[in-house]
C-alpha cells in the first residue's frame, strides 16, 4: 500500500466523485426547489451517452459529438418538463414516484427500439487516449484527468451562476422558500423549467463523459441514480454546495473502501473471511456513511432550507 497507489486511488475517487456531482447537482435542485421526486434522472445520463456516442460514430469526431449532445440533452430535459413533468407538480410524492418510474421504463425501451438492445461502440478520443505522469512512474489516463477537469469546471460554473447571478439568486430563494419566492412575482414556472433542463443537461454531460469509459447500453444510468440520491441526502436536499462536497466524499469513500478495505480486514481476520466480508462491507460503506450523517445531521451537511 504505497503512497503512489493511495494518490492514484484518490484521483480515481475524485473522478467518480465529480461524475456523481454532475448527476446529483440537477437532482438536488429538482428535489429541493421543485419538491419533485424525479427517478428518471438516470435516463438523462443514458440519453447524453447515446447522443454523444452516436454522433461521434457518425462524424468520427468526439468533440463534435460532445458539442451537439449538450444541446440535445438540454432540449430533452426542457421538452420532458413541458410535456409531462409540469403536470405532476401538484400530485403527491407517491404518484410522482410511479410516474417517473414509468418514465425510466419508457426511456429504456425507447432506446432499445431506436438503437437495439446491444451496447453501443464508443471509445476514447485519440487526442485524450494517452497518459499523464502524475508522479514519476505513475501514469494516469489523460481522459480521466479530463473528466476531473470538466467536472470541476462545471462545479465552478454552477457555483458562480448560483451565487453571483440574478437567476441564481432566484434559485437560492426558491430553494429556501418556494411559496414566498412565487409571491414576490418571480415566474416560478419558467424558473422550474430552466432548472429542470439544466439538471438534465448536467446529467447528460456525465453520461457523455462516461460513454468512452463504460458500456453504453439501456439502463446504464440507474446505478448512478441510487448513488446520487445518497449524495443528495448526505449533502442536504436542495444544496448545490452540499451536493458537491458529498459527491466527492462518496466518490472517495466508495473507491478507497473498495480497494483498501479487503487488505485492511486481512490484518485482523483470516484470508478467507476477509475476502468474503471485504467486498460486501465495501459496497455498504456509502450507505453506512449516509446512516451516520442522518443520525447526527438529519437534514444533511448543508441544508438549503433555513
Amino acid at each position, binding site marked *: 500500500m*504505497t503512497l*503512489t*497507489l493511495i494518490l*492514484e*486511488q484518490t484521483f*480515481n*475517487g475524485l*473522478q*467518480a466523485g465529480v461524475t456523481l456531482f454532475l448527476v446529483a447537482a440537477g437532482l438536488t435542485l429538482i428535489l429541493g426547489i421543485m419538491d419533485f421526486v424525479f427517478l428518471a434522472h438516470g435516463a438523462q445520463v443514458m440519453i447524453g451517452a447515446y447522443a454523444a456516442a452516436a454522433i461521434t460514430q457518425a462524424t468520427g469526431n468526439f468533440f463534435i459529438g460532445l458539442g451537439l449532445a449538450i444541446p440535445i440533452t438540454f432540449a430533452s430535459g426542457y421538452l420532458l418538463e413541458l410535456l409531462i413533468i409540469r403536470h405532476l407538480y401538484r400530485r403527491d410524492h407517491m404518484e410522482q414516484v410511479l410516474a417517473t418510474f414509468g418514465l425510466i421504463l419508457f426511456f429504456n425501451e425507447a432506446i*432499445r427500439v431506436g438503437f*437495439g*438492445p*446491444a*451496447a*453501443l*461502440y*464508443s*471509445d*476514447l478520443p485519440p487526442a485524450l*487516449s494517452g*497518459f499523464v505522469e502524475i508522479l514519476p512512474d505513475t*501514469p494516469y*489516463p489523460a*481522459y*480521466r484527468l479530463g473528466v476531473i477537469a470538466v467536472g470541476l469546471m462545471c462545479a465552478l460554473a454552477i457555483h458562480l451562476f448560483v451565487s453571483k447571478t440574478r437567476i441564481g439568486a432566484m434559485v437560492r430563494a426558491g430553494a429556501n422558500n418556494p411559496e414566498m419566492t412565487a409571491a414576490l412575482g418571480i415566474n416560478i414556472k419558467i424558473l422550474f423549467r430552466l432548472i429542470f433542463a439544466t439538471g438534465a443537461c448536467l446529467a447528460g454531460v456525465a453520461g457523455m463523459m*462516461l460513454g*468512452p*469509459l*463504460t*458500456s*453504453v*447500453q*439501456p*439502463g*446504464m444510468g440507474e*446505478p448512478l441514480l441510487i448513488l446520487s440520491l445518497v449524495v443528495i441526502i448526505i449533502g442536504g436536499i436542495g444544496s448545490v454546495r452540499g451536493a458537491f462536497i458529498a459527491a466527492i466524499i462518496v466518490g472517495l469513500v466508495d*473507491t*478507497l473502501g*473498495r*480497494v483498501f478495505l*479487503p487488505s485492511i480486514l486481512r490484518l485482523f481476520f483470516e484470508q478467507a473471511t476477509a*475476502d468474503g466480508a*471485504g*467486498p*460486501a462491507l465495501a*459496497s455498504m460503506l456509502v450507505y453506512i456513511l449516509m446512516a451516520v450523517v442522518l443520525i447526527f445531521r438529519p437534514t444533511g451537511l448543508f441544508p438549503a432550507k433555513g
Partner: protein
Amino acid sequence: MKKLMTICAVTAAMTVAPAMAETVKVGYMTTLSGGAGIIGKQMQNGVELAMEHKGGKLGGMDAEIIYADDQRKPDVAKQLANRLLKSDRVDIMAGVIWSNLLMAIHKPVTRSGTLLISSNAGPSPIAGDQCHENFFSMSWQNDQTPGGMGQYMQDAGIKSVYLMAPNYQAGKDMLAGMKRYYKGDIAGEVYTKLGQSDFQAELSALRAAKPETTMIFQPGGMGINFVKQWKQAGMDKVSKLYTVFSVDGVSLPALKDSALGILGTQTWSPDLDNAINKKFVADYKAKYGGYPSFYAAQAYDTILAIDHAIAKSGSKETAKMRAALAAGNIPTTRGVLNMNTNHFPIQNVYLREVVKDADGVVTTKIINTVFKDHGDAYAVNCKF
C-alpha cells in the same frame, strides 16, 4: 411485460396435413427485457434460425415455440414455468440463461415429468447430488470453461495469476473451477460488485501488484467495461489478460479493435470446423447481420437436440425422448455430442483468441484445444 410472446413457427401447410398430425410444444424461457435483453435476443435468434433450418418441424412433427421473458427474476421464472407447464401444456421446457433461475425452476419442471433442456446455465448442484433424469444441458457445467482456462495456464507454465470476478455465486464458482486445474501462485483474488461499471480503482491496485497474469470472469456489460478500461489504462504492459465468459459475440461489437489478442476459453467458437456450425454461422450472419455468440449457438443446439430426440424416438413422450438424448450422438454446432451420466455434455474446451476475420470484423478464433471430450467433476455425485 409479463405477456408471453407467442410465435407460431408453424406455417399452414399448403397440402392437406395428415388428420392425426401431432404438434410438439416447446416452452423457451430466456431474458428478453432489461440490460441482459441482448443475450435473450441472441438466443431467440438461434432458436428461430434452427426452426427455419428444420422447416418449422421438430423430428418431423409440427412444432410450436412459446417464448417466455423471465426478466432475470427467479420468481418470474417460476411463475412462467408453472404457466407453460399447466396452461400451455408444453412438451419440453428449454432455454434459461442464469444459474439462479435454473435452480428455481429445476425441481418443478423435472418433477412434473417434463424434459428441461438448458441452453446456458449449468450450476453444480444439478450436475451433482441434486441431478434429475429429466434434465439435460446443451451448454456446459459452469466449472468446465474456467477449468479449461486453469488447465491451459498450468500447461503454459504460468507462475502467478491475479483473479477477479463479481461477488456472487457464479463468480466464486468460476474462480473455484479455475483453481481446480491451476496449481501456481494466486497473486490476488478480488471480488468486484455485481454490475460494476468502473474498474479503474481495481486496475490501479492491479498495477501496483504487478502480477504476471490476470484472469477475469466479468460477463455481459461488465466485460465490456473491464476490457475497455484495461486497454485504456495500458494494462497490457503490466500483466497478460485471460478471460472466461467476458469477451464474446455479445460484447465484441461494442469493443471492436480494443479486444484484439485477448484470450479466453469456450466450448464453442464461430470458426469450429464442421458442417453444422459453418451453416449456422453463415446463415446467422446473413440473417441478423453479425457474428452469433455462444449463447446463440447453444440455443441453436438446443433445438437440434429436441429435433434429434423426437426423430430418434418417433415420439414426444418424455421417457422416449429422454432415452434418445441420453444415448448421445446428438448433432450440434460443436460436432456430435455425447451425454455424461448426469446428462451434461462431454465436450472439448478450446482456447480462443480475438482476431479480425477476412472482412475486418472482430471475432474469435480457436488456437488450442485444452480439454478433449471433457466431462465435469460433479457427475460422480449424480444418481438418478
